[in-house]
């Protein structure tokens, strides 16, 4: 199996940075997701790891061995693309066994391995079919099987679920995770879908504009986003971010009576970060707000949405900001109804509007 290490790896196309120097160490058996909007540099990073793209600077180590300038075929890494890249004119079986035949494996060995991998992916009954006769999900299973059968040191996957319908995507997502748990192969997975990233990744590397914004577990990027970009990008809807006026431990939302006192552990770091500035951004997840008739914060209902198991209420807290509050799906709130709410003090975050970075509370608070 494999560890992968990126040391100050960067990529420039002419004067444009596609990836600014980044460090990343991926443990043996780890599932790491590169997440970000299109153009953030995630796919370029993956392609540099595979060798399909050369680096402009830095080093890539596979099992501590410098592979920076090795040809892709010498890196012992399997690549799964968004589009299935299967040979249309041969059966699923022949597609899967292709890499083994290319390596000159014996017939018995090939048969054994194809059998194993197709049992794992539950495609035994499809082996004699050609790709064109298979559904999108089954084609992607065959492509995965072909990558698996090589038993590579590491897997690189570039949006493998991107081309599938929503219904397949959900079940394939679970299958890929299940497969990873069984096989424990080091995996680097690229996606723009934050839900997929959180569901799958042991760790998530959030990228934007060629820069790594944060590396952390799903819980870390969700609860403690490093900056405003991560706060907005992670979550559906993203974190509520309201600009407030800060004086003496109290945040006031301009133009309103809404005041929020800093919870324990925040006063010192906030004062130290903001210095003379009076602007602060208050952040909270939709589930951190609870409707409460005696709540200290209030706003007017802009829209309400049934989302299946629960509802989301969109509330205007002033003319600029609409916040999203997750609620039980019981009550119908007409537009302009005034609602009151409180925030769970443990789930509140603060950001410096100048640097856009999260302010860190005192340890142990």
């Amino acid at each position, binding site marked *: 199996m494999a560890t992968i290490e990126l040391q100050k790896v960067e990529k420039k196309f002419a004067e444009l940075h596609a990836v600014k120097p980044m460090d990343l160490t991926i443990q043996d058996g780890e599932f790491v997701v590169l997440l970000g*909007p299109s153009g953030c540099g995630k796919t370029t990073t993956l392609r540099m790891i595979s060798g399909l793209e050369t680096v402009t600077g830095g080093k890539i180590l596979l099992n501590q061995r410098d592979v920076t300038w090795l040809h892709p075929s010498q890196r012992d890494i399997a690549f799964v693309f968004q589009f299935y890249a299967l040979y249309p004119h041969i059966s699923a079986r022949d597609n899967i066994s292709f890499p083994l035949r290319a390596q000159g494996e014996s017939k018995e060995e090939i048969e054994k391995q194809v059998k194993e991998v197709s049992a794992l992916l539950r495609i035994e009954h499809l082996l004699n079919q050609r790709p064109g006769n298979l559904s999108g999900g089954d084609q992607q299973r065959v492509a995965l099987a072909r990558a698996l059968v090589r038993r590579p040191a590491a897997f690189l996957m570039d949006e493998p679920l991107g081309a599938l319908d*929503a*219904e397949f995507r*959900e079940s394939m*997502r*679970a299958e890929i*995770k*299940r497969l990873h*748990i069984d096989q424990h192969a080091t995996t680097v997975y690229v996606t*723009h*879908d934050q*839900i997929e990233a*959180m*569901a*799958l990744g042991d760790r998530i590397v959030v990228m934007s504009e060629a820069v790594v914004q944060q590396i952390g577990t*799903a*819980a870390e990027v*969700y*609860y403690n986003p490093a900056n405003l970009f991560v706060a*907005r*990008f*992670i*979550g*559906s*809807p*993203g974190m509520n971010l309201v600009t407030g006026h800060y004086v003496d431990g109290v945040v006031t939302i301009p133009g309103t009576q809404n005041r929020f006192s800093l919870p324990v552990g925040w006063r010192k770091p906030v004062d130290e970060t903001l210095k003379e500035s009076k602007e602060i951004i208050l952040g909270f*997840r*939709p*589930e951190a707000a609870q409707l409460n008739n005696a709540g200290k914060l209030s706003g007017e209902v*802009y*829209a309400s*949405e*049934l*989302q*299946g*198991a*629960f509802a*989301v209420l*969109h509330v205007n807290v002033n003319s600029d900001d*609409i916040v999203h509050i*997750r609620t039980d*799906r019981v009550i119908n709130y007409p*537009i302009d109804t005034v609602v009151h709410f409180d925030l769970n003090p443990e789930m509140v975050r603060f950001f410096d509007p100048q640097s856009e970075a999260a302010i860190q509370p005192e340890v142990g608070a």
Partner: protein
Amino acid sequence: MSNLELKQITKRFPGVTALNDVSFDVQDSEFFILLGPTGAGKTTTLRVIAGLERQEEGTVLFDGEPVDNLAPAGRDVAFVFQQYSLYPTMSVYDNLAFPLRSPLRRTPEGEIRKRIQEIAEVLRIPHLLERKTAHLSGGEMQRVSIGRAIVREPRIFLMDEPLSNLDAKLRESLRVELQHLQKTQGSTTLFVTHDQIEALTMADRIAVLNLGRIIQIGTPEDIYDRPVTTFVAQLVGTPRINLLKSNREDSTLYIMNSDLHLPSPHEYTVPGEFLLGIRPEDILPHPEGKFAGQILLTEPLGVQTVVHIRSGEQTLSSLIPGMSTLKIGDNVRFNILAERLHCFTLDGKRVQR
């Protein structure tokens, strides 16, 4: 605004019946959503209403009057498409003014200006009015497209997947804006989508369409809580509803290939063999839960976690709030909310109510 009624519409294309006896009505000021997979007949329905296709059978009525013999222009509907169809060389202002300047209307420029200012405020695009549409983002373009539909106050809005080309974040925020706009303007709107979350979140009522037929019409709560078929049950809700082959013996329900059994509901008679539907949020891990299983997989999604629980040969998905601390391989106890069970016949029809 107007109300709209479709009476027994059938539309055939060579070799295929695109719409098969489709009837529904959209009330004045209602936000009505047609939900269905590709090929369901959603777009064909819109085109029949707009007069772009002629049905073989049935009648389309606006405010109780048949419009079947009216040309598209005479029906006074506004269409918003998935692809923004703006004039790229014109400013946003001129794009918005275009329908009002048509020779049919000849609205005075002063009135046009006033109307566009209003619309721009509502859509939060006043700062974009002088810009050429080619320089707008996808979300801005779709706002302008919606603006151009609204500006002339048509009888009915027809929207064909207007959000599906936008990225997830933008789709989310435009969904909320569109709903707010529709409610505050009171516009009669027929909106088509394949995206269940759009339908649940925005609609006053939903019609589920499949293979040219209406399967169910109801409020989002009706569709989600009382799906009439397994097709509807699986179409709405993520993760998908658990559908489990089950048997009833006397007053006990047995989920096949598992150790799970539940008391049979009293309110209706469950067949001997049936499909049991359980929404993932109705399966709740609890230290003293009645049922036992093993955690096969967890998928933390931030606001909630999908937990796959193995019991016997069956895998159930459970949806729990927050980031779960359950670990793969752990034994787990859980409860199933008995009052929220769904029972379907083996061919997929709802048994109760």
